[in-house]
């Protein structure tokens, strides 16, 4: 006879099944609308190729930038006790709960060319304009992706037993060597999971990007923006591109799951 704890009530099974259907139906609907015979033609269209190129380039750059900013931030949040730590953590989480369009408006307030806090200075002294540029796309994507990486890394750093770092220190490892040779390998599962989440968030970014960087084909139009634009003018192209984005996401999920986040996925 099954133990009480391992028995699953019928309403739970039905609820879970409904959950699966709810998630699967839109994907099936999307696949159903893809015109398979013209898929290749649609995907090799100039606008689609431009959007894919910008999306992949900007999302990878945003993930790298998020790592550069996020790792030190996660370290301080996980291991330092300083005044205002709760405020900093709230600040880090804010882009996660903020409507992305509001994030874009906030970025305009900071880096906008005409009346941004820093935008005018960047334009006047360095000739750098972030709005309506590829850098604008990267900044917008970093803004929304950073929290995912920081949260994952902070959790990872908290779960690492510091005894290994202590042992390395006694054996003569300096701060930097200790980080590279001991902390980083221990952090690898959280790091890879965080990078994957951040990259996926950056790749799917829409609201902040369109508000801050615009929707200029060949310059700032990313794949999600292209899908949105094409839905009116070329629905077949929109579905083809959407299918490709789903395929990329699934490939990344499957590819990384076993290697780095197996424990979390099982």
């Amino acid at each position, binding site marked *: 006879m099954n133990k009480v704890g391992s028995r699953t009530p019928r309403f739970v099974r039905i609820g879970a099944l409904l959950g699966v259907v709810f998630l699967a139906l839109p994907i099936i609907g999307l696949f159903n609308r893809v015109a398979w015979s013209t898929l290749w033609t649609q995907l090799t269209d100039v606008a689609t190729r431009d959007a894919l190129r910008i999306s992949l380039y900007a999302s990878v750059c945003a993930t790298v930038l998020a790592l550069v900013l996020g790792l030190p931030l996660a370290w301080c949040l996980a291991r330092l006790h300083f005044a205002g730590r709760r405020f900093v953590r709230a600040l880090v989480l804010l882009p996660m709960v903020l409507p992305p369009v509001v994030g874009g408006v906030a970025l305009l307030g900071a880096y906008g060319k005409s009346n941004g806090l820093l935008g005018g200075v960047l334009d006047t002294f360095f000739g750098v304009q972030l709005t309506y540029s590829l850098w604008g796309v990267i900044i917008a994507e970093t803004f929304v992706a950073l929290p995912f990486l920081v949260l994952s890394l902070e959790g990872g750093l908290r779960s690492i037993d510091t*005894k*290994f770092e*202590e*042992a*390395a*220190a*006694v*054996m*003569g*490892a*300096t701060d930097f*060597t200790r980080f590279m*040779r*001991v902390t980083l*390998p*221990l952090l*690898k599962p959280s790091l890879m999971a965080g990078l994957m989440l951040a990259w996926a968030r950056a790749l799917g970014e829409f609201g902040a990007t369109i508000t801050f960087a615009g929707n200029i084909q060949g310059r700032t139009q990313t794949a999600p923006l292209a899908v949105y634009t094409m839905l009116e003018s070329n629905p077949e192209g929109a579905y083809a591109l959407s299918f490709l984005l789903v395929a990329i996401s699934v490939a990344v999920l499957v590819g990384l799951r076993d290697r780095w986040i197996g424990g979390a996925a099982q």
Partner: protein
Amino acid sequence: MISVHGTVEAGTFSREFSIDVGNEIVGMFGANGSGKTSVLRTIAGLCPLGKGELRVNDEFVDAQAKNIFVLPEMRNIGMVFQDHSLFPFMTAIENAAFPLQMRGVKRATAVEKAAEMLEQFGVAHVAQQMAPTLSGGQSQRVAIVRALIGSPSAVLLDEPLSAIDEESREDVRNHMREHLVRLGVSAIVVSHDRAELDHLCTRIENYTR
């Protein structure tokens, strides 16, 4: 030489210690909670000394009044941790070679030397195994090799033979003693097993609560 005269603190624990260790193997015997492990951690630089002075080889490494605190990585100490603390993402031989690499020895040379010492301590056959797959005794032997391999100027051993089975204990103990004598350094062995200390040490300090 190791010289500790001061207050060892760890969390709410605090106790005065006065220990002088020359080029000998000194045993520290005492009940759980008597601060034996905390003393070793303080000497290694993992906890600061509360009050007083700590010297290793006639150099002050921790003296609050003199505003001296030498970082653990600068103390050149070898240590066997109570739970071994082998790096779980490395093989046994990579663990054993680590201190040599930290001292600037090339990887190939470090691995060669580590292989030689693992052989002496009877764990050559598990050299390529990942640390988490080692048995308690194998893991402890690798930890001993790791503590001795870098020719440290002082060696601290926290329950170094506790996980090793009765039959091979004498063999490991003899190799350990041989290495310590050859290095000619101060060594402190902490154990709750009085007989073990009698076998290994030249002198025993008794610390009871």
